[in-house]
């Protein structure tokens, strides 16, 4: 038997231990205690976050599978659907970035093909300390190579992502991966252990001691003593995963497959108790039957190991050999370890002898919810300083050059060149524009995918930041010509036991929910990662939004690059008097101060509706949203992408730096043939959106005259060639230095 002291060592609280006693009506033994310890960790149980996550809108006619399964699934018409999910691998990546990121991508991919969907695209969202820091550089390079090598070897293209550098992530980087798959409605498979008497099988890699307690590890802060968990680091095997994927996709065509579950965190125990709980059944299994890679493994080690590239498969009794035959073809093992029972118990045997027995549902869903205290952080009020005291810089050209040289704004080509972006031959818009666009072979359809997050706004104002990140992801899809359908989230926060961190978490979720409701974009899957802390402080609150949208005609996609000299360039939306929270203030003037830009969600919706309509009507040559770095950076990006330039005069009553570099939300830049302008104006008027002409596409340079009452109050005038050079090389030069 294992007592309270043992429980503490395994990270269980007193309340939790009491609950275990209540559920079992006796003391648990060491094996059982281990099961509860991993299943009731935050990573598996969501005990800190569940009540808050309930606020997300998760319904909609397009939703085929909402949160609660391995991945969410959304309908895209014609009997086709898209499966998607985001997941974090932050803590493993902090220790071994290459393998941490690689196995993160691997887990993500499994979640998708577990549903029966064929993975067609990967994306990632990365955060590291600034590149001046040697460790940050090491983590950055390792994580990028790890994600790349895994996805590339699998032949799944990486079509988008994002990278930010900020010292809040110096010790605890964020490595989130997203996978998207395609599936026919009638082929969706769920993770259910239905049908008493059916067989429970483990397929894929053999089980070793690697990654034991990984789930609990992800549920605590990084510190020197938990860096060595006594169990070996997981190493990814993309070759085995590829074979496993093909075998599973072949298997899942069979009508005698009952349920499938990925073995991610907490391996055998999580996959068995979750599938059993979903079906209201139990499972009896013998750990000795699990194929093992190491000698003398104990029952608890087998149950909680996180060895990669494994799956749990439940099939109708009598079809075990059919399963084996399929896996043999792909040079993989498949073994029966147990059967589905009707008593709701997870019963564990070792060579036929009973070694543990607990109610499956208590493991999967019984963790006592934790009500966390929430407190508005004091810094938020200190951030509201009077920005009008900041002098306007004389040389705005120089500021633009400095902004384009910031790794957070500069080209990420150095990163995405390391990813195979084109395997599968579906990538219509590759990384480097607003969102990725993929065609779907055999149809006219396309999908667009983006992944976005911006910790800085969420730090300044978690609620507005939460709204903003959903709006940005949707905007990225809309400017690509796609109608947003659903999202998956990756919520990365510090230690939820700190009331200020919990406040950030709650408010971000509220903001996200609010935006989802107004924009009609349900949340269909997601992931929470807490305890992202360095020695002194938490990371910026960093919710990541992965979003998918659909194009009825993929040929109508749109990109951000200017297309033709002479096209008129217009702004959809309004320039606002908001300098707070801008990259310009933070990085150039070193003022970390708010307020973050506000988001009027109704205006946002109208802007997006108008933009999408204009693209669908074929009025538009290019579209690009305004984001970090403001109007000037957005124009520069469209120039650089096209190797064309821009010339224009903008009349304003704002400060020139606010106009050029302020980050007011809900703004989109369009370029279009001049003859289409009147149609656009009419459309905008109907929808209730402001359109103003900024200038024209003209090759050579980027030239903006900022005017106030006919007076020139600011000038940007720079050859496109020179800003291209800066923007292309900012990251490369810093990494190679």
């Amino acid at each position, binding site marked *: 038997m294992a007592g309270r002291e043992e429980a503490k060592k395994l990270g269980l609280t007193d309340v939790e231990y009491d609950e275990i006693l209540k559920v079992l009506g006796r003391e648990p033994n060491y094996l059982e205690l281990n099961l509860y310890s991993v299943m009731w960790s935050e990573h598996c149980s969501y005990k800190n976050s569940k009540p808050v996550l309930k606020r997300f809108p998760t319904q909609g006619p397009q939703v085929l599978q909402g949160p609660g399964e391995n991945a969410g699934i959304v309908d895209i018409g014609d009997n086709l659907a898209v499966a998607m999910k985001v997941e974090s691998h932050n803590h493993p990546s902090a220790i071994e970035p290459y393998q941490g990121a690689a196995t993160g991508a691997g887990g993500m991919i499994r979640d998708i093909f577990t549903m029966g969907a064929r993975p067609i695209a990967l994306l990632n969202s990365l955060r590291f300390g600034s590149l001046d820091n040697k460790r940050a550089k090491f983590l950055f390079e390792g994580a990028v190579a790890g994600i790349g090598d895994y996805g590339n070897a699998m032949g799944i293209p990486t079509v988008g992502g994002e990278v930010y550098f900020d010292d809040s992530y110096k010790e605890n980087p964020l490595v989130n991966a997203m996978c998207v798959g395609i599936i026919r409605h009638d082929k969706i498979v769920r993770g259910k252990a239905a049908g008493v008497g059916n067989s429970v099988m483990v397929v894929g890699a053999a089980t070793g001691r690697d990654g034991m307690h990984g789930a609990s590890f992800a549920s605590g802060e990084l510190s020197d003593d938990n860096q060595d968990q006594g169990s070996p680091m997981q190493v990814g095997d993309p070759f085995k995963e590829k074979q496993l994927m093909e075998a599973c996709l072949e298997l899942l065509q069979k009508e005698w497959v009952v349920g499938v579950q990925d073995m991610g965190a907490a391996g055998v125990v999580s996959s068995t108790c979750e599938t059993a709980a979903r079906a209201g059944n139990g499972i009896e299994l013998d750990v000795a039957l699990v194929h093992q890679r190491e000698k003398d493994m104990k029952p608890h080690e087998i149950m909680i190991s996180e060895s990669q590239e494994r799956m749990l498969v439940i099939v109708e009794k009598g079809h075990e050999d059919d399963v084996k035959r399929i896996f043999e073809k792909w040079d993989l093992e498949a073994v029966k370890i147990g059967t589905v029972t009707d008593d709701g118990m997870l019963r564990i045997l070792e060579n036929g002898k009973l070694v543990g027995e607990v109610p499956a549902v208590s493991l999967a869903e019984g963790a006592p919810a934790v009500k966390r205290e929430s407190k508005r952080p004091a810094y938020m009020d200190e951030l509201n300083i009077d920005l009008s005291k900041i002098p306007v810089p004389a040389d705005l050209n120089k500021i633009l050059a400095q902004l384009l040289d910031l790794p957070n704004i500069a080209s990420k080509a150095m990163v995405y060149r*390391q990813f195979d972006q084109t395997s599968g031959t579906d990538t219509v818009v590759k990384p480097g524009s607003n969102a990725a666009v993929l065609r779907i072979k055999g149809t006219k359809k396309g999908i667009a995918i983006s992944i976005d997050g911006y910790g800085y706004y969420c730090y300044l104002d978690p609620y507005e930041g939460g709204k903003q990140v959903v709006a940005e992801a949707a905007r990225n899809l809309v400017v690509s010509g796609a109608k947003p359908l659903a999202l998956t989230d990756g919520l990365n926060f510090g230690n939820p036991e700190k009331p200020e961190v919990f406040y950030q978490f709650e408010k971000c979720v509220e903001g996200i929910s609010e935006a989802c409701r107004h924009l009609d974009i349900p949340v269909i899957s997601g992931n929470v990662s807490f305890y992202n802390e360095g020695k002194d402080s938490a990371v910026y609150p960093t919710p990541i939004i992965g979003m998918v949208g659909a194009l009825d005609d993929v040929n109508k996609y749109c990109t951000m690059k200017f297309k033709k000299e002479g096209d008129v360039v217009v702004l959809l939306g309004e320039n606002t008097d908001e300098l707070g929270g801008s990259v310009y203030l933070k990085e150039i003037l070193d003022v970390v101060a708010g307020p973050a830009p506000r988001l009027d969600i109704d205006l946002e919706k109208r802007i997006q509706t108008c933009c999408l309509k204009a693209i669908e009507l074929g009025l538009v040559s290019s579209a690009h949203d305004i984001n970090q770095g403001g109007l000037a950076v957005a124009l520069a990006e469209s120039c650089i992408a096209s190797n064309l330039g821009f010339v224009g005069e903008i009349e304003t009553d704002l400060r020139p730096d606010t106009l050029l570099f302020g980050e007011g939300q809900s703004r989109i830049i369009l370029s279009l043939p001049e003859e289409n302008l009147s149609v656009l104006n009419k459309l905008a008027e109907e929808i209730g959106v402001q359109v103003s002409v900024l200038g024209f596409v003209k090759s050579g340079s980027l030239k903006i005259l900022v005017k106030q009452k006919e007076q020139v109050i600011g000038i940007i005038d720079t050859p496109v060639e020179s800003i291209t050079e800066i923007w292309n090389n900012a990251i490369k030069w810093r990494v190679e230095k």
Partner: protein
Amino acid sequence: MRCAVIKFAGTSGDGDCYHICKNILGQPTEYVFHKKTFAPQDFDLIILPGGASHGDYLRPGALAARSKVMNSILDAAKAQKCILGIGNGFQILLEAGLLPGAVLINKNLKFHCDDVFFRVENSDTPFTGLYKKGEVIRLNLACKYGNYYADSETIEQLKTKNKIILTYCDENGNPIKEANPVGSLENIAGIINSEGNILGLMPHPERCAEEILGNTDGLRIFKSILQYVEGGKVRGR
């Protein structure tokens, strides 16, 4: 033209090649699993697709080159069938000794995916008949081990016998070092065997063969083979 696309263990580019042959060229096309065999007369074109067979473990292509299906490929090679190796398929041909030389890791040790420029060095082959000699084309490159190497004697032979088919170049066709992202000798990106029926290419023509993907420069490789096979005429070697 009867096409075979080989499915090695872990290969991922098989579907892309199948799609081109079957749906774009409209030719009868079959997958051949690596544990199977076939007879030389079964197919006119045999494609060894890209994608990391066996996870690129040991050396890219090394383990796949020992698969059972290789025996059939050797027979087809002897029977003068057209054999096209793309990316990892090229590496498999090298490891199997069907083409001379080897690949090393890219000079910057990183995977490189981008559309880059190539010069067609020889248009007098079954694979390049529809290009002009010296023509500059753009193809997608996606590899970590594309750094072609052979000893100086082999390189000399490739050069004098016109067996170098594609080289990295700038947009004006200059074969400069800066235009070569992998570091291969002589900017080599594709070579053909001395009999002229086996081509190995580092870039992926099958990824650049449709309007919607923004580049169709690669399509003519497949159309050239089709013309050669259907025309039945042997063009000068």
